[in-house]
């Protein structure tokens, strides 16, 4: 399990994240949502270990991040950043194989390639092996990177809980691909038992696929819980300063969120400034 408690991050003397907490269990899909600047990326980076929190601590599988050896940590959690640019062209399969770096010398090269192919298949890029990564569309590149990250935590017989940390993986995907991608994440959580923490912008995707939603606002944790309890008109108004309706259509299990054109004036509603 990933546990991040009481996380505070300061940047040039200002707190950009305060008292944030998030838990991700194996097999669970947790969506991190909030307006731009709410601290989503910072929290994700703190969980990933890129940012060392000024307050609080993150532990993975009951071990504090600082105590994890680099290679060991890489085997239990993989991180996909928002955009990763390659300075040189290379075949897609090579990129995915690079994710197996932590297992180098521990598996034969042929096995590495097999795993890379498998991961490419999972993200819907079978047959892209020898394509030059630079010739792919933005969405395809993003999925190739996801395949690399999947390869990094791929294990035949997982001995420990493994996690994926994703920063807006649906960016530059079209509406169908967004659904496919989230179904894939859902499947990975259910079948492979991966714990997934992902930043999402699309509230409906969060509603449909997440087990839990963590809503941040101005560096603070606003609400956390099941999608239906967090993504309420009040929650959305507080978190985003946006009027929204949550509509239940007959025959569908989950409600839809419809946003309305008139925004709640966030600046009038300033009740909590960050201390």
């Amino acid at each position, binding site marked *: 399990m990933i546990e991040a408690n009481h996380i505070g991050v300061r940047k040039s003397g200002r707190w950009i994240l305060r008292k944030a907490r998030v838990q991700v269990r194996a097999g669970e899909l947790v969506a991190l949502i909030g307006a731009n600047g709410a601290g989503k990326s910072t929290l994700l980076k703190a969980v990933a270990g890129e940012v060392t929190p000024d307050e609080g601590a993150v532990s993975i599988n009951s071990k504090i991040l600082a105590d994890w050896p680099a290679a060991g940590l890489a085997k239990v959690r993989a991180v996909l*950043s928002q955009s990763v640019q390659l300075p040189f062209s290379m075949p897609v399969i090579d990129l995915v194989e690079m994710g197996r770096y932590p297992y180098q010398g521990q598996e034969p090269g042929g096995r590495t390639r097999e795993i890379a192919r498998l991961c490419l298949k999972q993200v819907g890029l079978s047959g892209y092996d020898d394509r*030059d990564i630079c010739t792919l569309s933005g969405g395809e590149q993003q999925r190739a990177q996801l395949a690399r990250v999947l390869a990094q935590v791929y294990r035949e017989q997982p001995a420990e809980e493994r996690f994926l940390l994703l920063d807006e993986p649906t960016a530059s995907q079209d509406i169908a691909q967004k659904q496919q991608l989230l179904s894939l994440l859902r499947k990975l959580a259910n079948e492979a038992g991966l714990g997934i923490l992902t930043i999402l912008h699309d509230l409906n995707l969060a509603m449909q696929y997440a087990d839990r939603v963590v809503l941040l606002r101005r560096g603070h944790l606003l609400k956390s819980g099941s999608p239906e309890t967090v993504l309420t008109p009040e929650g959305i108004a507080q978190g985003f300063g946006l009027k929204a309706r949550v509509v239940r259509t007959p025959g569908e299990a989950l409600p839809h969120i419809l946003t309305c054109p008139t925004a709640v004036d966030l600046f009038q509603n300033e009740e909590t400034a960050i201390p």
Partner: protein
Amino acid sequence: MIQSLPKYRSLSRLLSPPVLTLLLAISALCALLIGAYSLPVQQVGLVMGEQLFGLEAGLPQTLSYLVWDIRLPRILLSVFVGGGLAIAGAAVQGLFRNPLADPALIGVTSGAMVFAVAGILFSASVLGAIGSWLGYATVTVMAFTGSLLTTFLVYWLASSKGYTSVVTMLLAGVAITALGGALTGLMTYFSDEDELRDIIFWTLGSLGGANWQMLALLIPLVLLPAFILWRQSSQLDLLLLGEREAAYTGVNTQRTKWIVIGCAALIVGACVAVSGVIAFVALVVPHLVRLIQGPRHRSLLLGSALLGGLLMVWADTAARTLIAPAELPIGILTALLGAPFFIWLLLKTKRSL
């Protein structure tokens, strides 16, 4: 982004390590035969037999001297200098994630230059040893020291709190290079004619001073760091994704930066110390290999080393034969051929950097 050229992919097999090694061996042999005095292959074979296996062939001493003490060390020197510069260039380009990076950018070359010029002035005015063995050794040692010192200065400038910024390192390298150029210019301005001649020859590069003692020093200083660099191949691959992604994947990025810079400085420092400034090899050769074999460092580093050695053997052969019995400085030749070739490559790929 630099796109690889699909139509050159078939060259990939042609320029595989075994083929390149074979080409290198053949080129070295040809280079032994070609020169101001061209030699028939049997005679060269007899000299080699005499030297390596003690077979008495009753050859004239001058012939034996020409092959064994003049040409062979020089050819080996070309192989190691060319290969060393190219592998260091490839690693540094990977580290900086920039196909235009060159070890010269981190100050190695300009540092070597300042110290070498200071060495020339010192050996001329204090030791009175200009042109002699002592003077030559002074310059070599000074150049090597200078290249290492400047690299560490640049590395130190770019580091704070246990983190080294690659961008700051590049900027510091540019600044130090400019400073080095100014200092070199200043010393050049105040030097007399003999010193000036030496300085110019040194900055233009030459492999003419090759001998076995020099090789005995150079070879370990190139081979060992080159091997260590090659062992960092996977780490360098991941650094292509950026430092953050590499760290997420389990790479100790700080350690890799330190190893790559340290090894590149050792190699380039040693090469520059024995041969002066040889332009473009470290930039163009890795670029060419990357276009053909892709950016994975396991094949890139090896391919660059072999191709660098191969090209340098031919460049030096040209340098010593084109205007025989005089010699062209090899640095001029590599820049003269390398620059237009590089421009052609850029136009051919038609991609912005």
